[in-house]
C-alpha cells in the first residue's frame, strides 16, 4: 500500500513486516538517533521517569533474587518508553488499564514507589492493600484503573471505560496497554469492533515485544506486526519504534487529541523488547531457555540511553545526567523500599471483609 492508500484506510503507518522498519531492520545495527522536537523540555522529565521505572524494577528484580518478593513479577525493563510517551498526554480523569507487565504503566502515571513496592511485598500499605501483588495494581486517583494477569482481560474493560468517558462528555479517554500475545485472544478482536461501533475514545497500545512467554511472534502469527487488526476494524493506527519515546509521544499525542475532540478509538503498536525473562529477574534465561543473541542487539536500542544521547547532544542535560538522576532516584527507591519492608501485612479479617461491598457481613451470616 502507498501512504496515500493507507491514509484513505485511516492508517497512519503500518509496515507489511517489522523488517521494513528502519531502526529495527538490521539485527546488528546500532539504533537510529532520536529526533527531538523543537521544544524538548518535556523529555527531560520523560527521561527521569523512564530512569525511575527502570531503577524501581531493578530494585524489585533484586528482591526477587533475594527471595523477598514472592509473587510473580513480570519486569518491563527495556520497555520504558511506551508508557512514558503515552502518559505525557494523559490527565488524572483518564482511565488506564494494564496487564501482567504493568509496573511501568503504573509508575509512569503515579511515580508511587512505595505503593508499588509494598504491593509486590503483599503489604497492607500497597496500592491494592496487599491483596494483589505485582500483577494487580490500581491508582484511580491517577487514572490507573487496574491491571490483571489474565491476558486480554482488561481490553474490553478499557472499551467500557471509554464509553463511560464518552457518556460523561468531558473529553476523557481510556488507554488499554497489552502485549502482542494478547492479540491472539478473542477478547482483543471483539473489543476492537465494539470500540468502533460505540465510537469509544480508547487508545489501544500494543507493546509488541515480539514474544509471548517463550514463543516468538513468528511462531504464533503470520506477520510480526499486529496493527493489521486495527486496519481490519477501520481503527486509525500506527506501528512505530517502541524504544523512541519522542516518536511515541508524538503519535500518541495526536491520537489522544483526536479522541478528546470526539473521535473514536485509535491504535498504537510500539515495537520493543524486554530485557529480562518473561517472569522473574533473570537476563540470561527466559522461561527455561537460554536467551537469544537478540538481547544484545536490543540493548543497543536502549530507550533511556537513546533519549539521553539526544538530550545531551542538544545540550539540554549534562553529559552525566543519567548517572546523576539514577543516583538521586536510588535514594528515594531505597527509602520507599525500606518503608515497604517494615510495613504490616493485611489483617486476617481482610480476606472476608474485602470480598463484598458490605464488608463480608453477608457471607458470614
Amino acid at each position: 500500500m502507498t501512504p496515500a492508500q493507507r491514509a484513505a484506510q485511516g492508517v497512519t503507518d503500518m509496515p507489511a513486516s517489522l523488517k521494513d522498519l528502519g531502526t529495527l531492520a538490521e539485527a546488528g545495527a546500532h539504533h537510529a538517533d532520536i529526533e527531538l522536537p523543537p521544544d524538548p523540555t518535556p523529555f527531560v522529565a520523560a527521561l527521569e521517569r523512564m530512569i525511575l521505572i527502570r531503577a524501581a524494577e531493578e530494585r524489585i528484580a533484586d528482591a526477587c533474587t533475594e527471595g523477598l518478593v514472592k509473587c510473580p513479577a513480570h519486569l518491563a525493563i527495556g520497555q520504558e518508553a511506551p508508557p512514558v510517551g503515552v502518559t505525557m498526554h494523559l490527565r488524572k480523569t483518564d482511565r488506564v488499564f494494564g496487564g501482567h507487565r504493568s509496573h511501568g504503566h503504573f509508575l509512569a502515571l503515579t511515580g508511587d514507589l512505595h505503593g508499588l513496592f509494598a504491593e509486590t511485598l503483599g503489604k497492607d500499605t500497597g496500592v491494592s492493600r496487599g491483596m494483589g501483588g505485582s500483577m494487580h495494581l490500581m491508582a484511580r486517583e491517577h487514572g490507573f484503573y487496574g491491571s490483571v494477569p489474565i491476558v486480554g482481560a482488561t481490553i474490553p474493560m478499557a472499551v467500557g471505560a471509554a464509553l463511560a468517558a464518552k457518556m460523561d462528555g468531558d473529553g476523557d479517554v481510556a488507554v488499554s496497554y497489552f502485549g502482542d500475545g494478547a492479540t491472539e485472544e478473542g477478547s482483543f478482536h471483539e473489543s476492537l469492533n465494539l470500540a468502533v461501533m460505540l465510537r469509544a475514545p480508547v487508545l489501544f497500545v500494543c507493546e509488541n515485544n515480539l514474544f509471548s512467554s517463550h514463543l516468538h511472534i513468528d511462531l504464533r502469527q503470520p506477520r510480526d506486526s499486529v496493527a493489521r487488526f486495527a486496519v481490519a476494524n477501520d481503527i486509525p493506527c500506527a506501528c512505530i519504534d517502541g524504544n523512541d519515546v519522542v516518536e511515541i509521544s508524538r503519535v500518541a499525542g495526536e491520537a489522544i487529541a483526536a479522541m478528546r475532540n470526539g473521535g473514536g478509538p485509535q491504535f498504537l503498536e510500539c515495537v520493543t523488547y524486554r530485557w529480562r525473562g518473561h517472569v522473574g529477574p533473570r537476563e540470561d534465561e527466559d522461561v527455561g531457555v537460554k536467551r537469544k543473541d537478540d538481547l544484545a542487539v536490543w540493548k543497543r536500542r536502549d530507550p533511556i540511553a537513546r533519549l539521553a544521547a539526544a538530550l545531551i547532544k542538544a545540550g539540554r542535560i549534562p553529559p552525566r545526567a543519567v548517572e546523576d538522576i539514577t543516583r538521586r532516584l536510588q535514594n528515594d527507591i531505597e527509602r520507599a523500599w525500606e518503608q515497604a519492608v517494615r510495613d504490616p501485612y493485611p489483617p486476617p479479617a481482610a480476606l472476608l471483609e474485602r470480598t463484598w461491598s458490605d464488608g463480608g457481613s453477608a457471607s458470614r451470616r
Partner: protein
Amino acid sequence: MVGRRERVTAMITSYGAAIRDGFEYLLDNHPDVFTIGQGLWSPWYVGSSMTNLDKQFGVARVIDTPVSELATTGAALGAALCGYRPIVIHPRVDFMLLATDQIVTQAAKWRSMFGGDVSAPVTIRAIINRGGEQGAQHSQALHSWFAHIPGLRVVMPATARDARDLLIASVLNDDPVLYLDDRWLYEEQEEMPAPGPVRLEGQGARVIREGSDVTLVGCGYTTKLCREAAEALATEGISAEVVDLRVLNPLDGETVIQSAAKTNRVVAVDGDWKSCGLAAEILALVAERRSNDTPVRLARITHPDAPAPTSKALERQFYFSATDVATQARRLVG
C-alpha cells in the same frame, strides 16, 4: 405476600412486564444506569421484558451490540469501574458462558484483588430460556456455578414483584450481581405497589407458605412448582412449607435450616443438574447443622444426568412438574 404494604397505586403486573418496570424505574431515576447487550433494539428478543426501552430512553442508554458476549460484558464491567451501573443483557445463559472469564475471574474478584475499596457495580442479566425443543445449547441455567463464586451476588426472582424489585436491588448494589430470570415465569401475575429503591443486602430466602410436615425449597421457576405442589398436598392434609431462596449468593441458609428444624423433612427442588448443584448445597446446609439431632429426611429433585434433549417426548421426562415435587414430598412424609 406476607408483610408487604400495598400502596394506593398497586396494580397487577406480569413477571415480564415487571422486569420492564424495573428497567424503567432505574433508567428514569438513575442517570448512571444504562443497559447493553444483544437484542435491545428488537421488540422480540428478550420477550416482553424490555420492549421499546430504546425508544423511551434512547439508543445511547439502551445499547444493542455485535455478537460479542465477552467484550460486551467486559465493557460493562469497565463502565462500572468508572461510575456507571450498567446492566448487561444475555438473552440466554448459554450465550453468557462465553463471558465466564469477565464474570467470574474479573468482576467477582475485582474488589478483593484491589484491596476492598473499589466497586464493580455491574449487573449481568441472563435469561433462562429452555424447553420448546430448543435443545441442549438453549436450555442451561447453571445458577449453581455462579452461586459457588465468592464476590458475585446471584439472584433468581420467582415472582413478578421480585422480578422487578430484585432487578432494582441488583443494580443499586455495589457488587457485581448475576440476575437470572426465567421465561417460563413471564406470564405470572402479581399485584404490586409502585417501584422504589430496594437494598439487596437485606434480601434473603423467604417462607412464602407456612407448613409443618415438609419443607419444599425452590428458586426461580421451581418455587412456582413448590407452591403448586404445596397446594396439591394441602388437599390431602399434608402441610408443606415453601421456601423461596431468592438470593443464591450469598445464600441465606438460616431460613432453610429453621424451616427444616420445624418440619424435619426437606425436598430441595432445583432446575439444574444434581451433582455439585444448589440442591446439594441445601441438603448439606441442613445436614451439617443437624448432625447432632434427630435425623432429618432429605431429598433432591433435579434434572436427570443428561444434557437437555430436543424431542418433546424426552423433554417431558427431563423437566419435572409440580406433580413430581408433590410425589417426592409425599414419599418423605409417608
